[in-house]
């Protein structure tokens, strides 16, 4: 098997408040192959966005600091690079798109100009060529009449169109990896389906690798090749999509799947996970899921479980893993 394009090992982010430091991202490891779409799944506060921000060195507060870990891009360690050298990676080799494109596009600059600016910043060249490339990118992301629409301002675009423009902007530098942070969460389902198809097409045509951050297991099941489930800042399960969805080993993964209402779910009470996700300043000891876990056994409260292999590439961190197959067991309990 070919070496992964991106290898993240033991990524750790600490939040410092006075003397105390809590690890809001704690030893997160995953690998991304060329052309692979990896779904990073978790609830709010699970660390899924923070792990990717740390990877891009875009931690949003001075209280948050990278506390360890290694990131290899195409075999080269990039974690220790000085900031000036890192600029040739962030936005260029690794692009990013966000949940709310309106707040990441310049409201007073025409869409085409913003994309052309990025093309010239990353690749140089003349203004006219950059403008032509911008129109071509808008065409590739499915904007009708791209030559005319390039002159529009972001507020003249609908939500789905803005997300397409944001994708075009991220593609302007010909990145190898795209980090997509909940890009369809704010969109209507019909538009979400269009954007998911667009991302698949871009992956197929450009061989792009995508890290897709989401809380929606349905989106992961439809779009991704592999799944990495985070809880309380740690990876609790990682593996190929079909393997994880058919045989979830971590009780949290199995619980999340059982919570999905499912369009075919019939009526009646939903299964739930009791309790609430932990706050970042009060993370439980041992396995961070143990206070909510129906499978918890004696060591769970004290000993952090290691990531154990269950099948090729399928790892789960649990002292008492789930044994039964879980897909299609959405019974009402």
């Amino acid at each position, binding site marked *: 098997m070919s070496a992964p394009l991106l290898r993240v090992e033991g990524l750790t982010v600490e939040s410092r408040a006075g003397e105390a430091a809590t690890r809001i991202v704690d030893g997160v490891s995953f690998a991304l192959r060329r052309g692979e779409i990896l779904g990073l799944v978790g609830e709010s506060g699970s660390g899924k966005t923070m792990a990717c921000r740390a990877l891009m060195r875009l931690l949003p507060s001075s209280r948050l600091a990278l506390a360890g870990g290694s990131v290899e891009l195409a075999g080269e360690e990039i974690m220790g690079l000085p900031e000036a050298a890192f600029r040739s990676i962030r936005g260029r080799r690794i692009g990013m798109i966000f949940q709310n494109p309106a707040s990441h596009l310049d409201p007073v600059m025409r869409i085409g100009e913003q994309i052309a600016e990025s093309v010239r910043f990353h690749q140089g060249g003349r203004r006219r060529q950059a403008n032509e490339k911008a129109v071509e990118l808008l065409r590739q992301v499915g904007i009708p009449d791209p030559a005319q629409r390039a002159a529009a301002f972001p507020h003249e675009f609908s939500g789905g169109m803005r997300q397409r423009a944001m994708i075009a902007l991220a593609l302007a530098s010909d990145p190898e990896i795209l980090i997509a942070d909940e890009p369809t969460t704010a969109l209507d389902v019909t538009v979400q389906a269009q954007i998911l198809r667009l991302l698949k097409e871009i992956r197929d045509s450009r061989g792009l690798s995508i890290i897709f951050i989401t809380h929606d297991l349905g989106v992961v099941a439809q779009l991704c090749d592999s799944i990495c489930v985070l809880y309380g800042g740690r990876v609790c399960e990682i593996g190929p999509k079909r393997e994880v969805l058919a045989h979830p080993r971590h009780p949290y993964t199995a619980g999340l799947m059982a919570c999905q209402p499912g369009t075919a779910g019939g009526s009646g*009470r939903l299964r739930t996970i009791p309790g609430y996700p932990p706050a970042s300043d009060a993370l439980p000891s041992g396995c961070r899921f143990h206070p909510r876990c129906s499978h918890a056994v004696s060591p769970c409260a004290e000993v952090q479980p290691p990531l154990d292999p269950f099948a090729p590439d399928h790892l789960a961190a649990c002292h008492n893993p789930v044994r039964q197959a879980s897909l299609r067991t959405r019974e009402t309990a």
Partner: protein
Amino acid sequence: MNRAASLLEVDDLVLHFPVSGGGALGLWRRSVKALNGVSLAIRRGETIGLVGESGSGKSTLGRAILGLEPVTSGHVAFAGIDVTAGRRADLARLRRETAMVFQDPSNALNPRLTAGEAIAEVLRVHRKVLPAEIPARVSELLSLVGLDPTLGNRRPQALSGGQCQRVGIARALAIEPTMIVADECVAALDVSIQGQIINLFIDLRERMNLTLVFIAHDLAVVRRLCDRVAVMYLGRIVEEGPTEAVFSAPRHPYTAALIRSIPEIDPDIVLPDAPMQGEPPSPLSLPAGCPFHPRCPHAEARCHADPPPSLRRRDDHGWACILEPGALPTPLNASPIPIATGESA
């Protein structure tokens, strides 16, 4: 439908918001056509889901039902109260019998009041219990929504999103309402918490015979919770009927496309490549003819020009389309998935 049995009657409701004019000197007056002739009847104890994409008018309809929006024309009647006439005594009675639960639970609560004070405020204003009994009733309401009464001493920022939403529901229940309008009340919550809130509504409905208007864009949640569902598109109800009938045999192409657009957790139920083209047009300038025709795969010449089809009704299942029932293919994910025993290793 037996009109006498209805708790809420909405009759040909039209609601247009004027917006600041475009053109030279802003003289070109325009309006957002949020509701364009909505009729709906809800029986006592029924849970109805209002679904549709953003801009479909579902939230506006929810607010208009509670008399929170100025109506352009048409009528809303709640238990004999003419909501649209806006008489002060009528509205006061309406406020005593209805409540609303909002989408963003932390913003809907006063940050300076503790959860307990926020609930006590409602009890005081509506004089539901004697002042001396308020603390006991607050604890009772917190327990009713599944919160530890000691959490009543906390302010919203010390509560999680799910806990705040439970406080919001406790405030709504404090007035002992006949009807609750819940506007996207689980959309901002984590998946594992959504289920808790949905189950809470299922419990409360059984115990208190609540009438619930549940506004949501998440069709899966609506299918779980609601007896009936009304699908809205650009300010019109395009389909309305018993939930199972609508989901298993949709009669309007928009409903069918919405159902197909939901990504299923089973990778074998593949999301179609293009469930629907384009996005909803702006409610500032509605298309001529049927408002859905620019996105409709079944549109014919008459759909472009003729006035929009009115809601036809057969077997208590209404639809606003020229197609006959059964003309649309059954959605792939319509039939309930067989329940596995799940005990095998």
